[in-house]
């Protein structure tokens, strides 16, 4: 399909358009997307991981961790941006709020399930050995929960990167969503090229996070709990 050839040519030109000097380059847009996404995911991790991990440790509040988190996923991003725009105007703040709302649910749910699902016998044994609650969390539960927590972070990261397009629709420019939402200026080759970049970026981010996960998982655990949740759909059977 010649459109794909044109799209790759667009990528090869780093996003330049004939007759429109001074457009931000594709690499610049990609970096902005990463930046905006990273802030959103970072904030979400800071909020969701401690809460989810603690709830899983005390084996309480599954309703909060799972259902309340699901409400966040249920909120349509464009609608959230629209409401935020009405109250605060469209800026980085509102966009980040929308991204955090989207990213917290998979992270908090998986953090909860990860810690909650650690074999009770192991936890009891550790308690019997005299470990404090904090030590149990740090040395037993967290290492075992790493695969699931990271699965949640990976899911969230992919959601967030894909959602920057929607922010462009609402009027927030500077990310890879720009060419996709402005077909008139960038032509279809630009749309396709940027879309390919977004997909590639998501896959790269997923890959990097997987490597980080491997690094953080203690060797003994890697063989046992290679639970592959994958992107896009959290584990079945929740609630």
């Amino acid at each position: 399909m010649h459109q794909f050839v044109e799209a790759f040519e667009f990528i090869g030109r780093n996003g330049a358009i004939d007759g429109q000097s001074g457009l931000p380059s594709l690499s610049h847009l990609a970096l902005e997307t990463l930046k905006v996404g990273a802030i959103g995911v970072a904030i979400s991790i800071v909020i969701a991981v401690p809460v989810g991990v603690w709830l899983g440790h005390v084996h309480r509040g599954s309703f909060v961790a799972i259902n309340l988190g699901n409400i966040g996923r249920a909120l349509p991003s464009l609608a959230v941006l629209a409401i935020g725009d009405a109250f605060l105007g469209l800026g980085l703040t509102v966009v980040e709020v929308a991204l955090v709302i989207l990213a917290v649910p998979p992270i908090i749910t998986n953090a909860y399930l990860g810690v909650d699902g650690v074999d009770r016998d192991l936890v009891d044994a550790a308690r019997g050995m005299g470990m404090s609650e904090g030590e149990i969390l740090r040395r037993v539960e967290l290492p075992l929960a790493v695969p699931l927590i990271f699965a949640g972070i990976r899911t969230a990261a992919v959601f967030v990167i894909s959602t920057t397009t929607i922010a462009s629709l609402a009027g927030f420019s500077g990310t890879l969503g720009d060419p996709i939402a402005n077909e008139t200026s960038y032509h279809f080759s630009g749309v396709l090229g940027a879309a390919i970049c977004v997909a590639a970026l998501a896959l790269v981010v997923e890959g990097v996070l997987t490597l980080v996960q491997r690094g953080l998982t203690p060797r003994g655990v890697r063989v046992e709990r290679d639970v592959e949740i994958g992107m896009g759909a959290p584990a079945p059977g929740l609630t």
Partner: protein
Amino acid sequence: MSGYAATLAATGPVIPNFGAHSSKCVVENRFFCGDWVSRNWDSVLWPALRQHVMLTAIAVGIGFVISVALALAAHRYGWLERPTLLVTTILYTIPSLALFELLVAPVGANIYAAEIALVSYTLLILFRNILTGLREVPEEVLDAAEGMGMTRGQALLKVELPLALPAIVAGLRIAVVTIIALATIVYTIYDKGLGVPIHTALGEGPFKTELLVAGGLTVALALVADGLLVLLQRVLTPWTRARAT
């Protein structure tokens, strides 16, 4: 503005007084103008809500049927799983807006393009969930079914599918909520759904009342759908409720 006068004929057209029909509230763009809402409910907001439900229902309905078929096939012929997962995962990372725009050239700026894209996203979610649900059925249960003399087909119908039900309904829940969100973007190629008033409002000012009401309706729709499906989950799989946590 005398600069333009040079191009105007001396007489020019008759410009009627269109009259200021809207309330002060709207002109000042206050947060919520009840009069605008009641005047535009029947013509703008209610049709948009209805269309949004329709777009979602069609996509999830068709997507569900195809996903079940694909999952059953992949369950039977294991080699199908990898390629299907690969294709669906790659599709999922394509920004939805780009997929809509891509479909306009071959299919047209119509409901077919919108639904093809929405059904694709439904597939990604449901296929994975249904397949995993089928897979999670413990070996012993299947063996017991075989031991009881059930055929492959009977085991599927009476044992595997019911046991996979929690996963299936959980997947449906995610799918419905995701499609409601994606349907807000349909307006870019097809003039239906709650994205239409959101888009209009974004360009006007932005027009706060319409943003809040249209955005609010979308959020409410998603929450109601989510809630209904949770209820459905409870009804269909009462055994999952009795989980000691």
